[in-house]
């Protein structure tokens, strides 16, 4: 076994170690070995293929090094458009999720456990429901003669059915529906850990509830909000299924373009370059939020 061969390869100064230290080392190695299947899987199926794709993004059809796949992203209008739309949708969906999700998380964190537990089911239920099922449901609801349009016409709000799907509107509604739990759950968890005595202190010192909320509660909830917001935003950036179905091919985001490039081009270059840019954006956003969170934590103690 791997463990025994590793033990046999100990450096020459091994005999200086007491037997106890050797035991401790062997134990560490055994415990590390338990992590290796998972690490191996990640190496082979994640790091290796993605490294490969990065390599391909710099190679042209004849196998020569090139930047053409990247320069095309900046120069060709169609590509620029895809990035603009992806960011527009992602920002809009994230903003809507924050506007709807923050009050919900706040409400849940204030309610007695009996009620919040019940309402939490409402947040978790869509989480457990298949993405396709939910997208299908929106397809039914938002169609030309669907419930939403019928209700709007019956109420006399509109005369003609609104075009709610196969466009931006449908994509955004469907994505908000899927993303809200990703924002609410981390935010709720962090709100639960906010110490209520800060707010009572503020009230004792004469702050109105509104002022205590804006000056004490909101700043304390920002780390949780940032965590949920970043998660939502990066999930939006790489989202594929809902825009593909509810956008009806008319809303092209980065992920759809990558999928199309794989089938469209004989080489891997164009898809790889897009993928590399997407990964870079995701990593940068994660890194920035990580640094920001670290700074906040240090300041808040």
């Amino acid at each position, binding site marked *: 076994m791997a463990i025994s061969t590793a033990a046999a390869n100990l450096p020459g100064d091994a005999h200086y170690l007491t037997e106890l230290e050797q035991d401790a080392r062997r134990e560490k190695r055994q*415990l*590390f070995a338990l992590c290796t299947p998972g690490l191996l899987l990640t190496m082979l199926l994640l790091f*290796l293929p993605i490294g490969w794709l990065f390599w391909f993004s710099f190679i042209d059809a004849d196998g020569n090094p090139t930047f053409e796949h990247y320069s095309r992203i900046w120069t060709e209008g169609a590509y620029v458009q895809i990035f603009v739309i992806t960011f527009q949708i992602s920002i809009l969906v994230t903003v809507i999720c924050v506007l709807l999700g923050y009050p*919900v998380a706040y*409400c849940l964190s204030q309610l007695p456990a009996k009620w919040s537990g019940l309402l939490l089911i409402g947040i978790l239920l869509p989480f457990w429901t298949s993405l*396709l099922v*939910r997208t*299908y449901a929106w397809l039914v609801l938002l169609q030309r*003669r669907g419930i939403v349009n019928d209700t709007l016409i019956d109420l006399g709000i509109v005369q003609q059915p609104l075009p709610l799907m196969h466009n931006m509107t449908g994509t955004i509604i469907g994505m908000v529906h899927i993303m809200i739990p990703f924002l609410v759950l981390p935010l709720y968890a962090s709100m639960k850990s906010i110490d209520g005595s800060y707010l009572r202190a503020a009230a004792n010192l004469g702050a109105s*509830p509104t002022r205590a909320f804006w000056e004490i509660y909101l700043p304390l909830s920002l780390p949780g909000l940032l965590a949920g917001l970043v998660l939502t935003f990066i999930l939006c950036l790489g989202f594929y299924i809902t825009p593909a179905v509810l956008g009806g091919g008319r809303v092209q985001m980065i992920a759809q373009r990558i999928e199309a490039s794989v089938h469209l081009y004989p080489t891997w270059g164009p898809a790889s370059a897009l993928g590399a840019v997407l990964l870079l954006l995701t990593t940068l956003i994660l890194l920035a939020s990580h640094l920001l969170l670290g700074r906040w934590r240090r300041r808040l103690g």
Partner: protein
Amino acid sequence: MESHVTHQQRLWLYLLTVLVICFLVLPSLIVIPMSFSGANSLMFPPKTWSLRWYDNFIHSPQWLEATWVSVRVAFFTTLLATPIGTAAAYGLHVGRFVFAPVIYGMLIAALMVPVILIAVGAFFLFAQLDMINTIPALVLCDTLLAVPFVLVTVAAGFKGYDMNQEQVARSLGAHRFKAFMTVTLPQIRASVMAGGFFAFIIAFDEVVIAIFMSGGEGATLTNLMFSSLRDQVDPTIAAISTLMIVLTTIPPLAVHILSLKRQRR
């Protein structure tokens, strides 16, 4: 805090919360009555009722074949991801390595990479190995996605468990593996089972990788659903969706309600 704000003043907050939760829950539930519709259209509420879409599903070789592919993929993924994730959680919990954050970060890296990239990368890799559209390839990819969930769930289980119990078993002469299986595992059983359930659902629900890596007779249920959603909307999907809602939400719902009841006691 509540003493300064009355429930009445907060009415808008409660109202908004209820509305958002309705927005989250109701759309998926609408699929259930749709699936019992007697008509070919997507009218809601349906004018006539029938079981024809369930009948359609049961008698369609294409849908059944796809379901069978998905079940096998999900089953083998659970079988693979649960021990891999549990072993890693154990190693990290007991080992307290200096590099533990790095190892942990690598093990959950798949969560942070957009799935579309994992799918393209895996497509490329398995194309070289001539393994596209095979169950082992799908199982390996889904295991990559499922291990982080098992790891996080089981790691949470270890937090509430006193490791000294295993030490006692070992000092009495039990081999580490035996001590784990007979002393530790029974006590963290709930979190391991939850992790395994996650793995099953993740593999069963996975769409993006399935679109790239499966097709034709080897297409997964989700792949078939996706292409029929994109091309023409067949009410059979409502029947399948209802079955999927039942399969994926009843077990966690039951667990959640049980834990709520226990809290109250």
